[in-house]
């Protein structure tokens, strides 16, 4: 399951081709970042991990400082948010590692939050309304494997093949066909061009979670 901070990162990555859309995501990224980490920080303090909480807060504060000026900077330079994205990634990596090691006492898993109302795309929306399109076994194997990769990472067919469990392993050619189909369905993308690696879109990650259930 991806954290709310991971969702924010993914929303930003999903809109990299559209500066206006990206500016809109950045505009409320500050609130979303706070919302996604505030409870966790308190949680860690209560658990006696104040130093770890402070470390996360420091990274979040660093990212917030950059975020506040992001919509303005993007007006003059469409690639201006690369550094801020990486600072956000810094925070996300630490929060993710914390979530793996320290079970949260208070955080509500994304899948258990109330399903988002129509038009409430993005933060906090659950998987309840996810519509899973008909997928072949190969496509299911590929989408499940792609879901294991970091949201930032682009995976080639050979990387996907290597990541697959042996009994479910498919050939690069089969994987390539499945990725193409997932892209047609809007569940995957090749943000750096047709010959680059692929990753899941936000919709693809939601479908992957649903398929895995």
């Amino acid at each position, binding site marked *: 399951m991806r954290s709310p901070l991971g969702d924010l990162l993914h929303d930003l990555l999903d809109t990299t081709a559209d500066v206006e859309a990206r500016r809109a995501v950045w505009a409320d990224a500050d609130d979303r970042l706070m919302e996604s980490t505030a409870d966790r920080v308190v949680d860690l303090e209560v658990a006696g*991990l104040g*130093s*770890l909480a402070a*470390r996360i807060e420091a990274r979040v504060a660093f990212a917030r400082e950059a975020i506040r000026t992001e919509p303005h900077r993007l007006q003059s330079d469409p690639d201006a948010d*690369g*550094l801020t994205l*990486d600072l956000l990634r*810094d925070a996300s*990596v*630490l929060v*993710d*590692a*914390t979530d*793996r*090691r*320290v079970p949260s006492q208070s955080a509500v898993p994304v899948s258990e939050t109330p399903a988002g109302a129509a038009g409430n795309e993005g933060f906090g929306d659950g998987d309840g309304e996810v519509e899973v399109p008909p997928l072949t076994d190969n496509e299911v194997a590929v989408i499940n494997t792609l879901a294991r990769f*970091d949201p*930032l*990472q*682009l995976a*080639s*067919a*050979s990387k996907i093949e290597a990541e697959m469990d042996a009994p479910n392993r498919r050939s690069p050619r089969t994987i390539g066909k499945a990725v193409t189909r997932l892209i047609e369905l809007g569940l995957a993308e090749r943000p*750096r*061009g047709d*010959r*680059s*690696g692929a990753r899941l879109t936000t919709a693809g990650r939601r479908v992957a979670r649903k398929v895995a259930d």
Partner: protein
Amino acid sequence: MSPSKPERPPLVALLLAISDASERLSRNGGRLLEPADERDDPIDAVEYVEPFRNAAADLIVWLEIKGRSGDADEIDDAIASMLEVARSYDRGELQARLPDDDRAGPLEPLDQLIDAMRAASGRLEDLDDEIPAQVWEGYDDA
């Protein structure tokens, strides 16, 4: 039954991985940052060191749980310094400069990136000497 070989502490695994990556970069020049067969876009320096940031985050959290925030600070700072150079490299901000030691020729941006990776690896190696092996017990169980 032969005695089992002691597992390598995760900090050592990380520093060796960084060291290996810096040596590959040193051997192959900038080719690792150029397009590979499977893609038509070059990987950037931040992308190249990305796996080390992820691995370091796990170590940092573990050390925090074990009450060793000073050691976590050292890892955090070593990796952050390396990342900063990688970001500068990607933004084209590194300029060739003369080396501090007696090496011949200027330090090109790629050399500076390699040096930053070696420095991070060296700092982690120093830190490893200070952390008792017992601290890592159970690390792989989580």
